[in-house]
C-alpha cells in the first residue's frame, strides 16, 4: 500500500511562504509527477512528504496513518536525489546495504535483496566499485537501486534525470516507467521537464509559486488546461496565447476578434461573458494550418521558418505585434515578410477569461 494524503499543507521559511494550502491525494500504485518552473515549491513538497522537512501547517497521511510528525526514517519511503547522493566512500554494494544494515536486517536477506536489485537494474558488475568510478547513468541506476532494495511504501524521485545527457535521459525515462510497471509501487516524481511529466505520469500536478494549478491525467492537462499558466506550461512549443475581445456570445460558442486580425468562433460556454469582455484565446502551434476556410483565422507576417523535415515551424507576428508560432505539416518555404493566414479548428481553441481561468465548453 502506498496512499499518501496531504491536507492543507503550508510551509514557510520565516515570513516567506513556500507552499500555500496544498491538498493532494496520491493513490496507491500511482506515478504522480509534480511539475512546475523552478522555485515553485515542488522539491519542497517532496521533502515534506519524505519527512526531511516539516510543514508549518497541515497534515500528511500515509495509508491512513498521520505521519506529519514522524521522522523520515519511520515513514517507510525511499528517495532518489537529483545529485544521486551516493555515499562516495562506500562501494556500490555498501551503498545499497547501508539502509538495510541500519534496520538490522539479516545479512543473507540483505545480500539477496542487493542481488535482486542489481540484476533488475543491471549493475551487478559494478557492485564493488565506488560511485566515483561510475558514469552518470550507472550512478543513476545505483541511486534507484538504493531505493529499490528498501522495498518502500512509495518512491520519491527528485529530478532524477536532470544530470544525464539527452540520450541517456530518454532511455532511463523508459526504464523508470518499466520499473514502475513492474513494482506497481507509488511513485512521486518531481521534474521541471514537461516531456518527462507527459510520458511518465499517471497524473500530473502542475505547480506555480507554491500553489497547485491543476491536477489531472497528462492528456487532460494538454487538451483542457485549467488556466493560462497550465496552458502555457504544458506543450512544446508553447501554446499561442492571444488577447482578444468578445464580439458575440451564442449558446455553446463565443465569437472573438482582436485588433491584430484574429477572428474566431470558439466552442465554449460563454454565459458569464459579455460582449466587449477581455479574453485570451489559446491555440497550440500544431493546431494551426494554412487552411483559409477554418473556424478561426489569424493573419500574420512570417519572420522566420525552420524546416525540420516532417514539419515546418513558422515564427510570425500579427499586425498588433503578437508573436505566433505555427507548426505546419510538410516542408514549406515561406520567406520572411510573407503574410500567411493561419486557420484553426474551433474545437482546438482554448478560451480564457480575464482572470486567466478556462472558459469551459458547454457540456
Amino acid at each position, binding site marked *: 500500500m502506498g496512499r499518501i494524503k496531504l491536507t492543507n499543507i503550508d510551509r514557510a521559511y520565516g515570513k516567506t511562504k513556500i507552499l500555500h494550502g496544498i491538498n493532494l491525494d496520491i493513490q496507491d500504485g500511482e506515478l504522480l509527477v509534480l511539475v512546475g518552473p523552478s522555485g515553485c515549491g515542488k522539491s519542497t513538497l517532496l*521533502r515534506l512528504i*519524505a*519527512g*526531511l522537512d516539516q510543514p508549518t501547517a497541515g497534515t500528511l497521511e500515509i495509508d491512513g496513518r498521520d505521519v506529519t510528525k514522524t*521522522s*523520515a*526514517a519511520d515513514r517507510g*519511503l*525511499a*528517495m532518489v*536525489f*537529483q*545529485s544521486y*547522493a*551516493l*555515499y*562516495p*566512500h562506500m562501494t556500490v554494494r555498501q551503498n545499497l546495504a*547501508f*539502509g538495510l544494515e*541500519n*534496520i538490522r536486517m539479516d545479512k543473507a536477506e540483505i545480500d539477496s535483496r542487493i542481488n535482486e536489485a542489481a540484476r533488475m537494474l543491471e549493475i551487478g558488475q559494478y557492485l564493488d566499485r565506488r560511485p566515483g568510478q561510475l558514469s552518470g547513468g550507472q550512478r543513476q541506476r545505483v541511486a534507484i537501486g*538504493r531505493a529499490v532494495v*528498501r522495498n518502500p511504501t512509495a518512491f520519491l524521485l527528485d529530478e532524477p534525470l536532470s544530470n544525464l545527457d539527452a540520450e541517456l535521459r530518454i532511455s532511463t525515462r523508459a526504464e523508470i516507467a518499466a520499473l514502475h510497471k513492474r513494482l506497481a509501487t507509488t511513485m512521486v516524481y518531481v521534474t521541471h521537464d514537461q516531456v518527462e511529466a507527459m510520458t511518465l505520469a499517471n497524473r500530473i500536478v502542475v505547480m506555480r509559486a507554491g500553489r497547485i494549478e491543476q491536477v489531472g491525467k497528462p492528456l487532460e492537462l494538454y487538451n483542457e488546461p485549467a488556466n493560462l499558466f497550465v496552458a502555457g506550461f504544458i506543450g512544446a512549443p508553447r501554446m499561442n496565447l492571444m488577447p482578444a475581445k468578445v464580439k458575440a456570445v451564442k449558446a455553446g460558442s463565443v465569437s472573438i476578434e482582436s485588433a491584430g486580425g484574429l477572428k474566431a468562433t470558439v466552442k465554449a460556454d460563454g454565459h458569464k461573458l459579455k460582449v466587449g469582455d477581455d479574453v485570451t484565446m489559446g491555440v497550440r502551434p500544431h493546431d494551426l494550418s494554412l487552411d483559409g476556410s477554418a473556424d478561426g483565422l489569424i493573419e500574420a507576417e512570417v519572420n522566420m521558418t525552420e524546416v525540420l523535415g516532417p514539419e515546418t515551424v513558422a515564427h510570425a507576428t500579427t499586425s498588433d505585434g503578437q508573436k505566433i508560432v505555427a507548426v505546419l505539416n510538410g516542408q514549406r518555404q515561406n520567406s520572411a515578410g510573407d503574410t500567411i493566414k493561419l486557420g484553426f479548428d474551433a474545437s482546438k481553441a482554448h478560451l480564457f477569461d480575464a482572470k486567466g481561468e478556462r472558459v469551459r465548453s458547454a457540456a
Partner: protein
Amino acid sequence: MSRAITFLTRRRGGRGWHWTDVFIWTWLIGGLIVMFGPALWLVMSSFKSPAQLAEFPPTLLPYATEQVMVEGYDKPLNLFTAKLPDGTTKVMAEVRRIGIVSQLVDPEEPGEIVKVNIADREPVRQVHFATENYTEPFEHFDFLQYLKNSVFVTVIATLITLLTNSMAAFALSKYQFRGRNFVLLLIVGTLMVPLSVLLVPLYSVISAVGLFDSLWGVILPTVATPTGVFLLRQYMLTIPDELIDAARMDNASEWQIYWRIILPLAAPALAVLAIFSVVWRWNDFLWPLVVLSRKELYTLQVGLNTYAGELNVQWHFILAMTVVTMIPVVLVFVFLQRYITAGIAGTGLK
C-alpha cells in the same frame, strides 16, 4: 637528470643574467640560509663536545683533537702542530700544560720533553661526531621515559581532539539551530585569548579537579581547539546536505550519520588537524611545565629543560636531544605535507 639541471639553471636573460635572475637566486639562497641554517647549525652542534661548543670562533663542523698513545704515558695524548724553539714545525703530543707553557713530546722519541709557548702550537684536528651526546641521555638519563610520556600525550590528545572537534564541527555545519553563528563566533573568538592569560585560571581548574601532576592534566585542557573546529566546519560545509538527507532516508541515526558518513568524508581535513595537533602537542612546553612536577611524568620538551641546571647547562645533551625531539615533527611534515597544503587550500575557501 640533465633535464633537471636545464630546468634549474633556466634564466630569464637567456645566456646572460637578467636582474630578476640575480634577484631570485639571491632571494632563494638567502632564504635557504635563513630557513635551513639554524637547523643545520643545531644538528652540527649536537655532535660537538662540550669544549668545542664553548670555543670561539665556532666552527660549523664538529672537530676533535687527534690523540695518540705514547710509550710511557697511561692516557692518550693530544696531538699538536708545534713551532719548536729551533724554528722547525713538527707534530708533537702534549704531556701537560702549565700556565702558558705547553710540555710536548715527540711520539717517536718519547724520552725528551720540549717546552713551547701555547701560542706557538695548533691542535691537530679532524672531523669527529660526538655520538655520545646521543647515547648517554638514553643510557643514563630518563630520556626514554620522557619519550614515552610525550608519545602518550601526543597520541591521546590528538585522538580526543579529532573526536571532540569533529563533533562540534558537525553540529555547527550540518544542524540549523538558533544561535549557531553565535556559538561559532564564540569558539573562533577564543582564538584571540592567548595561553598566558589562561594559565593561572586553567591551573586552578586543573588543580581543583585533581589533575595536577598528571598527564591527563596536560592532555585535557588542550583538546578543544578553535582552529580545529573552524577548519573541520569549513570542510564539512562542502559535504553536500543531500548525503545527510539520503542517510536519514536510509534509517541512519544521527550518530551513524556522523560516524559513517561525515567522518570518512572529512578525512582530508581530519588529516590536516591530526598533523597540526601532533605538532602542537609534541612541541608543547609551557603548559606541561606548569602542570607536571614529578620528573617521571615529564614530557620531552620539559625533560630537555632539566639539562639546563642552575649552574651548569649541558648544551651538548640539550642540542642532541632537541634534534631527537625534532625528528617526529620533521617526519610528519615530510610524509604528510601534501595533506597539509591540500587541506589548507581545500578548507576555508570553498
